[in-house]
C-alpha cells in the first residue's frame, strides 16, 4: 500500500514498480530546480506523490569506443567539469556551462532539462546538434530514440509503464568534425537563452559532408534545421552560401515575443548567430 507522499527508491527496479503503481499521481523529481519553483508557488495537489530519482546511480559520465554515456541525473556542473566531456563533446560542456548559475548547475540535471524541455532549453539544443539518443528504461526493457523524436512524442507513449529517462548516448566528435555554439542572452552570467544556435558538422576541406544545425528559442522546441542540410551538404562553405542559409532558415522558425525579446529581434539575431557558427566551422 502506497501511503507516503515522498519516495526515494534505491534502484531502478523499485523505481519502475513505484512509478507503475502510482501512474499519473507520480511526480518525478531529481535536481528540483524547475519543479521546486512550482511548489514554492502552489501547494502540492493532495493526489500527487513525489518520487525522487537522485539515488538510482544515474549520474554516470563515461566514454567507451567513441560513444559518451551521460546519465539522466548527471548534474550540469559535473558535465561542465568533466575532462572527457570537455575533450570529446566540447559543445555539450560549453552549453551546460552557460546555463543558469553555479549553484543551480550543481543541482540541475541534463535529464531534467530534457523532460521540462523549455522553448530555450540549451541542453536539449546541444544534445540535438550532437545527434544524441535518449535511453528510457522501464520494467519492459530499454527504448532508444533520438532527442528530437523524444521531444515530439507524447509523454504517455515515451514514458509508459513506469519508464524513466535513464541516460543519453552521444557519438563523440571525430577528428574531421567541427562544432559551434552561440547563445544570445541578456547578460554574461546566469541568464536564460533568448536563442541559441548549435552545430556539429563533418568537413572535408571546405566541403561540408554532413551538418546538424539546431536553433533553440526559435520555435516551440529546439529543432534540427532542414534548410542547413539541404543547402550545405556536399557544397563548399562559401560566404554567399552562409548568407543564404541565414536568410532561408527563417522559413523554418516560429519565433515568439516574450519578456526577453521580440520575435522581430529574435529573427534578426538568429541570422547573425547562424552566420557566426557557420563561419566558426568553415
Amino acid at each position, binding site marked *: 500500500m502506497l501511503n507516503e507522499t515522498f519516495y526515494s527508491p534505491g534502484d531502478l527496479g523499485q523505481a519502475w514498480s513505484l512509478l507503475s503503481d502510482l501512474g499519473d499521481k507520480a511526480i518525478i523529481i531529481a535536481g528540483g530546480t524547475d519543479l521546486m519553483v512550482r511548489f514554492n508557488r502552489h501547494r502540492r495537489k493532495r493526489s500527487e506523490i513525489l518520487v525522487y530519482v537522485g539515488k538510482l546511480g544515474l549520474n554516470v559520465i563515461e566514454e567507451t569506443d567513441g560513444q559518451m554515456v551521460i546519465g539522466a541525473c548527471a548534474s550540469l556542473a559535473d558535465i561542465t567539469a568533466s575532462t572527457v566531456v570537455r575533450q570529446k563533446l566540447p559543445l555539450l560542456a560549453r552549453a551546460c556551462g552557460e546555463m543558469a548559475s553555479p549553484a543551480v548547475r550543481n543541482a540541475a540535471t541534463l535529464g531534467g532539462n530534457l523532460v521540462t524541455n523549455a522553448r530555450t532549453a540549451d541542453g536539449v539544443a546541444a544534445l540535438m546538434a550532437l545527434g544524441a539518443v535518449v535511453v528510457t528504461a522501464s520494467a519492459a526493457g530499454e527504448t532508444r530514440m533520438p532527442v528530437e523524436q523524444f521531444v515530439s512524442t507524447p509523454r504517455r507513449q515515451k514514458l509508459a509503464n513506469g519508464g524513466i529517462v535513464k541516460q543519453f548516448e552521444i557519438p563523440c566528435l571525430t577528428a574531421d568534425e567541427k562544432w559551434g555554439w552561440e547563445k544570445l542572452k541578456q547578460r554574461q*552570467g546566469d541568464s536564460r537563452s533568448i536563442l541559441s544556435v548549435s552545430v556539429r558538422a563533418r568537413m572535408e576541406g571546405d566541403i561540408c559532408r554532413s551538418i546538424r544545425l539546431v536553433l533553440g528559442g526559435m520555435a516551440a522546441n529546439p529543432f534540427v534545421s532542414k534548410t542547413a542540410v539541404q543547402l550545405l551538404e556536399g557544397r563548399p562553405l562559401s560566404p554567399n552560401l552562409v548568407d543564404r542559409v541565414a536568410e532561408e532558415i527563417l522559413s523554418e522558425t516560429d519565433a515568439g515575443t516574450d519578456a526577453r525579446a521580440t520575435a522581430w529581434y529574435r529573427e534578426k539575431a538568429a541570422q547573425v548567430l547562424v552566420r557566426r557558427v557557420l563561419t566558426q566551422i568553415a
Partner: protein
Amino acid sequence: MPLLEIKVNGRDHQLVVDATASLLTVLREHLHITGPKVGCETGDCGACSVLVDGKLRRACLTNALSVQGADVVTVEGVGGSGRLHPIQKAFYENHASQCGFCTPGMIMASKALLDENPNPTEMEIKEALAGNLCRCTGYINIIRAVKDAAEKMAHGGGDR
C-alpha cells in the same frame, strides 16, 4: 508526513516535513536559522545560497527530502562562536554590504569558490558570484572583499 534527518551547522536534526518543503523552509521555519533569505524563490537571486555536502546550492530550489542525511552549512555556520570567518571579515572591512539582504548568499558563494579555488582571478570571482544579485549595486566592493579574503587566507589569515 515524511521524516527528514539532516545536519545543519554541525548539529543533527530530525524533523517531520511536507514532501514538497524546500530546504529554505526547513531552515527558516522549522529550525529558525534565518541567515538564508527568502528572495525570489525561483533560483534567480541567490539570497538563500547554502552549502550542501560542500556544494553551493539554492536552498529555495532544493527539495528538503532529496538531501536526506546531508551536511548543510549556512552563513551562521561559517565562522566560529563570536568569531568571523576571514570572508565575513573581508566583507566587513571592504564595505561589501549595504542593506545586507544578499550578504549571506554572497558569503556562501564566495566560500564555495575559495574552498575549491583558493586563488581565483577576478573573472573567476565574477563567474562564481554570477547567480547572486545585489540590488544596492555593491558588486565592486564584494569582488574586492573576495580577493582580499583569498589573499589573507593564503597568508595564514585564518583558513577554516
